[in-house]
């Protein structure tokens, strides 16, 4: 399981975590990707980084499915705190509350966080 808790663009963690997810998909592992806290901002629509000159990788989250990664979880509490709904996101995700997210984490062999 990969856990994303940081906003995109302000730091590189989101982009480099996405690169890990894409590689993990190739390994045919049972990979889950979690977006919580500011990590939910990674998935917002309409990102346009042209004027800040950085890479716009937000559309690449759609490619996760092609890499066999279908388990995308977003924490409900984090979405709500930021006034976001699933319709604001670039990909289809499962919305889970904090309690359920904790249970999912418990089931993992490995948790990589960025």
């Amino acid at each position, binding site marked *: 399981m990969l856990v994303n808790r940081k906003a995109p663009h302000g730091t*590189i*963690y989101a982009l*480099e975590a996405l*690169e*890990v997810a894409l*590689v*993990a998909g*190739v*390994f045919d*592992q049972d990979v889950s990707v979690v977006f919580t806290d500011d990590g939910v901002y990674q998935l917002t629509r309409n990102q346009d980084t042209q004027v800040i000159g950085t890479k716009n990788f937000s559309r690449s989250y759609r490619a996760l499915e092609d890499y066999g990664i279908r388990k995308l979880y977003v924490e409900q509490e984090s979405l709500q705190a930021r006034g976001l709904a699933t319709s604001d996101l670039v990909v289809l995700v499962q919305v889970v509350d904090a309690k359920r997210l904790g249970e999912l984490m418990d089931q993992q*062999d*490995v*948790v*990589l*966080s*960025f």
Partner: protein
Amino acid sequence: MRFAILVNAGPYTHQASDSAYRFTRAALEKGHEVLRVFFYHDGVHNGSRLSVPPQDERDLPKLWRELAERHCLDLVVCISAAQRRGLLDASEAQRHGKDAYNLSTAFRISGLGQLIEACIEADRMIVFGD
């Protein structure tokens, strides 16, 4: 038990590299196996051979190097993270037309597959970072 370690932050700037080094050393001293230390994000700077810290401060790249020699540790620097940040080994430097390289010979450059493989093979993966 078989451990794998992920280091996500640069030496000196964050304590994470120190913590990872001390954890790794403690694990080895207790007889555990550390099958790989993977350096990602700014963690790649741990592999610099040009670092010259003040004499009254620890030399982290050197500490890693010595630990690796003593325990045959596999220290792997992520290639894409390293290229962005200007950390190259001799062959990478040549490939990109640079006349110098700065990766310590105790480290090797490889892809993210090495991180995933370590996750699969290790009993525990421990992450240190910013």
